[in-house]
Structures are given as C-alpha cells and as structure tokens.
C-alpha cells in the first residue's frame, strides 16, 4: 500500500474521537477489506437448523465469494466455493434446498456433498488425458469451519485462530441469546434479502453500538408499536453498557424486555416472563436481564442481531457503496409454535425492509455513505468521541467494558479492530 493509505489505515485520530471518511468510500480500502477482513476472519455462514439432514444446502457469501454450505452424508457440515474448477461457473444456482450432489450447467461436471468431483460429461476424452486427476478437481473448501451453539462460521484463512479464540470473551455474551434455554435455538423458516446503497461498515457499526439513533431515528416506529417514543437511555446513573472483545460489540441495558416489547405481541412477553427464572438459572441474574433488553450486537465483521426482536442478519459487501442485507429470525427450539410464529411475524413487522423501525435506517445510511463522494466533504473527519473515559472494570462482565449505552466506545473498538486487521499481514501480527 502507498504511504497515504498506511496513514489512513492507522486511523490515528480515532482515540481522540475522529474517523477518516475515506474508510467508507475508497475502492482500494474496500479491496483490502476483502483480502484482509473477509478472506481472513471467521464469518457467519448458516444456522445448523438450516441444514437439517444430509444433502440440505444453502448458498451464501463470504465477502464477494459465493459459498455453498452443505450437510454431508456423515452429518458434518462442509463449505466450498460455489464455482466449478473447470470454467468457473456456479455449480449451485438455488439459494436453499436439498440435493444429492451438484452438477455444473456448463459442461456437466458433477460434485458430491463432500465437494469431490464425481463425474464429467464426455468422460472418455478426459480418461485419455494423462494429466487429468479427479482428486485435484473438487470444489475448493473453506480453510476452517466450526460451530458455536448452533451458529456455523467459516474462514478462508488456515492461519486464523480457532473460532473459540476468535470469539474470545464475547462467547460469554453470545450465550445470552444462544444458550438461555436447554433446547438451544433454530432459525424460523425463510430469509429476506434486500439491497442498501451504503458501505457495509455503516450498518455494522450501527448494530455495534448506536443506541443513540434508536430514540431519534425510530421515534415513529416506537409510536406505531408501543404507542410512545423510545425513553431517553443516557441518564448518568443508567445501568447500561458498551462491551466489546476482539472487535465484537454489544450495547445493552438491563431492562430485560425493552426490545422484545416492540414486537407488540403478548405471547412473546408472556414467554419471556414465564422463563425469567430459567434464564437466570442458566445465565446468572445479570445476563438473564439482557435476553430481551434494549440492545444491539455486531460480531466482527458483518454479522449483527438484536436481542428481543431476534432479527439476525449479515451485511454482505457488494462494493464500497453497496451492501446486500440478509435477514433471518432466531427462536428457541423448545418455544411453543405460536410463540415462534409471533416472533417471526414481529421481527418482520419491526426489522425487515417493510418493518416500521428498519424502514427509517436505509436512507440515513445511504446518504451518510454518498456524502463522501465530495472530495472536500471526504476530508472532513467524523466525530466518534462520545464516552471517552467511560471504561470500567466490572466484577462480572468480561472484555472491554464501558459504562453507558449512549456511547461511541464500541464503534471505536470496531474501527480499532478494522485498522489492526487491515494493517496486519498475518494473524500473528493482528493479534499483537
């Protein structure tokens, strides 16, 4: 990289609360993100419940690489580049389904659930070719794949640390939503996909820490679902936090049900109330109060969710100024069907492209991105200074803990991790 970019990637003003706008605009920054973040980090690719039996598959994205995620015959999960090693065509054109194998439409090469090449059209001609070796012509697998309590993650980097280390102290927080019930979780049926004309980081950092926008941007949505606005969250004695670990971020208070209440469904509220004690038994009193509270989460780099509404989503990068949003709804597997249905409907009513909350986010994010087309505008740094000096030690909460959810501490942590990874040539360098 050029000297100018080294300076940009260092984000030197961040600790003082300033962010360089070029991170949202420059094409060379974006290309480096694809190499050093999306081709290296552990990325969310599926929930295990989406792959219920051998042959079940979904196609998804890891950066701009299309990936085929498959339940193999032995019950394990594989993930491969969805691209034929012969001429590069996709071998699977559906987004979800069940298959015995995959056949490329172009020249009829076929692949098993383990990714291996099982057959070719005009096989006699290939059989006469001395250099043709089927064992070297399977679909390219990801370097590592692992699960954490139902969530499937993959990385293209053989040198990436194990998933458990990548999540680090953040696993403690993930259990709030993934392990509050003995039956674990599943995704409700289907997924919704839409396109935002924004940089992927603007959406990711919003979920990482932006409780501030909730009461303002979403005043009209709160009016629709609660009959009132969002209460102020920033009182000095508010029992709320920004926590982060390895760039993964969770902002929350301890009201227990504030997010869930926006679904406007008594069945969801009754479920949470009835299970309060059980949550506390599994998670302890403090984490039990996070299950449905006013909060938002981003797992670095681009996997977000909202406890309470239980919308889960990935911000798939499609160029520096375009993001494809994929959303799912998470439910507890053991919850009654009517509660699961209420959650699915409520999550869509609030946080989907037609949701009364989400429909006010897109324009903000698109214009926040597009403003940076101006060469003069782009030179004006953005203010990320809220909550300096809020770092605390907490007897129960691991990771970096900050007092107060009206804060920019998580956003700064997100960009610090971003900067670290973009400058590091190896995972060893990034960890230091």
């Amino acid at each position, binding site marked *: 990289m050029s000297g100018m970019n080294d300076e940009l990637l260092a984000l030197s003003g961040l600790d003082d609360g300033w962010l360089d706008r070029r991170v949202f605009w420059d094409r060379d920054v974006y290309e480096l993100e694809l190499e050093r973040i999306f081709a290296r980090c552990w990325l969310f690719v599926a929930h295990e419940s989406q792959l219920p039996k051998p042959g079940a598959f979904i196609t998804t994205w890891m950066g701009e690489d299309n990936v085929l995620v498959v339940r193999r015959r032995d019950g394990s999960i594989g993930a491969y580049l969805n691209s034929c090693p012969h001429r590069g065509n996709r071998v699977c*054109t*559906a*987004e*979800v*389904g*069940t*298959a015995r194998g995959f056949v490329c439409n172009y020249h009829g090469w076929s692949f098993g659930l383990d990714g291996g090449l099982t057959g070719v059209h005009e096989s006699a001609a290939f059989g006469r070719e001395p250099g043709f070796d089927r064992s070297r012509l399977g679909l390219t697998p990801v370097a590592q794949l692992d699960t954490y309590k139902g969530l499937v993650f993959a990385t293209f980097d053989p040198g990436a640390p194990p998933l458990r280390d990548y999540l680090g102290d953040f696993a403690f927080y993930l259990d709030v939503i993934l392990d509050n019930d003995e039956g674990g979780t599943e995704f*409700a*049926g*289907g*997924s*919704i*996909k*839409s*396109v*935002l*004309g924004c940089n992927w980081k603007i959406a990711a950092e919003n979920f990482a820490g932006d409780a501030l926008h909730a009461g303002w*941007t979403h*005043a*009209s*949505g709160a*009016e*629709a*679902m609660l009959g009132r*606005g969002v209460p102020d969250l920033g009182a000095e004695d508010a029992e709320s936090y920004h926590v982060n670990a390895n760039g993964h971020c969770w902002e929350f208070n301890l009201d227990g049900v504030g997010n869930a209440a926006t679904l*406007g469904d008594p069945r969801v509220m009754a479920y949470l109330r009835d299970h309060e004690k059980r949550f506390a038994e599994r998670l302890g009193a403090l984490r039990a109060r996070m299950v449905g509270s006013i909060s938002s989460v981003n797992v670095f780099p681009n996997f977000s969710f909202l406890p309470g509404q239980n919308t889960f989503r990935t911000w798939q990068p499609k160029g520096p100024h375009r993001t*494809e949003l994929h*959303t*799912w*709804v998470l439910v507890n597997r053991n919850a009654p069907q009517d509660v699961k*249905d209420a959650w*699915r*409907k409520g999550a*869509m*009513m609030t946080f*989907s*492209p*037609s949701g*009364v909350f*989400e*429909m*006010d986010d*897109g*324009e*903000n994010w*698109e*214009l926040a991105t597009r403003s940076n087309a101006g060469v003069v505008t782009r030179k004006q740094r953005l203010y990320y200074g809220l909550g300096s000096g809020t770092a605390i030690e907490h007897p129960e909460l691991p990771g970096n803990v900050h007092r107060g959810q009206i804060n920019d501490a998580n956003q700064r942590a997100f960009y610090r991790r971003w900067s670290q990874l973009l400058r590091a040539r190896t995972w060893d360098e990034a960890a230091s």
Partner: protein
Amino acid sequence: MTTMETYWEVQTFLAYEARLLDEERYTEWLGLFTEDAHYWVPGVENRGRSDPNGPYAPSRMAYFDDTLEDLRRRVVRFTAPTAWAEDPATRHLHVVSNIEVERAETPGELLVRSVIVNYRGQGDIDAATLYGRREDILRRVSGELRIARRLVLLRHAVLPAKNINTFF
C-alpha cells in the same frame, strides 16, 4: 365468468385504491379492507424447480403477514410527524394491470388477479421499482367492494430496494 358491469366495477375499485396509495391517503385506504382481512406479501426464495417446498410458504418470513390491526399500526408509523424518512414525501406510483375477475368459492366473493408495478421516487435521485402479481378476494360489504384477502407475489428474491415504505 362475470359480467362486464362487475369487471368495470372491480377495475374502477382497484384504480381508486391505487390512487389512494399514490396520494398517501392511508386512513381511507384502510377503509377498503374487511375487518377480518389478511394482507400477505411473502418473502420469495430462489429454489430449484424440483424443490417441493416452493418459493414461499405461510411458515416462512414475509414482508407483510398482516391483520387489519397490523396494517393500522403501520399507518401510525407512516403518518407520524417523526417519520423523518417520509419528508420530503416519497413520490409513489402504483400501476395495476392484467385484471382478471371470476367468482370465488364463497358465494358473493370475487377472485381478482392483477399485476402491480410500484415505482417510488425519493429525495433527489433515489428510485425503486418493484413488480408483483396479486390475488385478491373481494367481498361486498353493505353493497361496496372490500378487500378480504390479498396475496402479493413479488418477482424479487433479493429486494432491489432499501425498504418498502408503501403498500401494494
């Protein structure tokens, strides 16, 4: 088959409904539904032809899976003075075409099929166009046509828009 008079009445009704949406007259629009209405715009999945599960299903995620009460809530958001994204106003256009009218299974109800094209212009140059097929059940309430059920099948697996701040 239905009479030309019924066809004319249905076409006039759908054109009027589209104009209410274009003019953001949401409260009047709500008045076109029966109390037990179901308004459903399912998400569309890109699945193979041989997949028995099909591109949409009631158990899966949907843009709208609404009772009249749900639609009323949405209208609260649209009409709230704090709906910042609605000001300046979106420039809506709802085009209804390919209308087919036949008797529904329930006596006195009509099954109406149509094609909907929805264009939205926003801000300076933002624009989105969505396409879908509709299947409505229209019922007479006190002599007037009302929408008892609407299914909108969008033609998009990935919605080519940041949101749906309108109805179809």
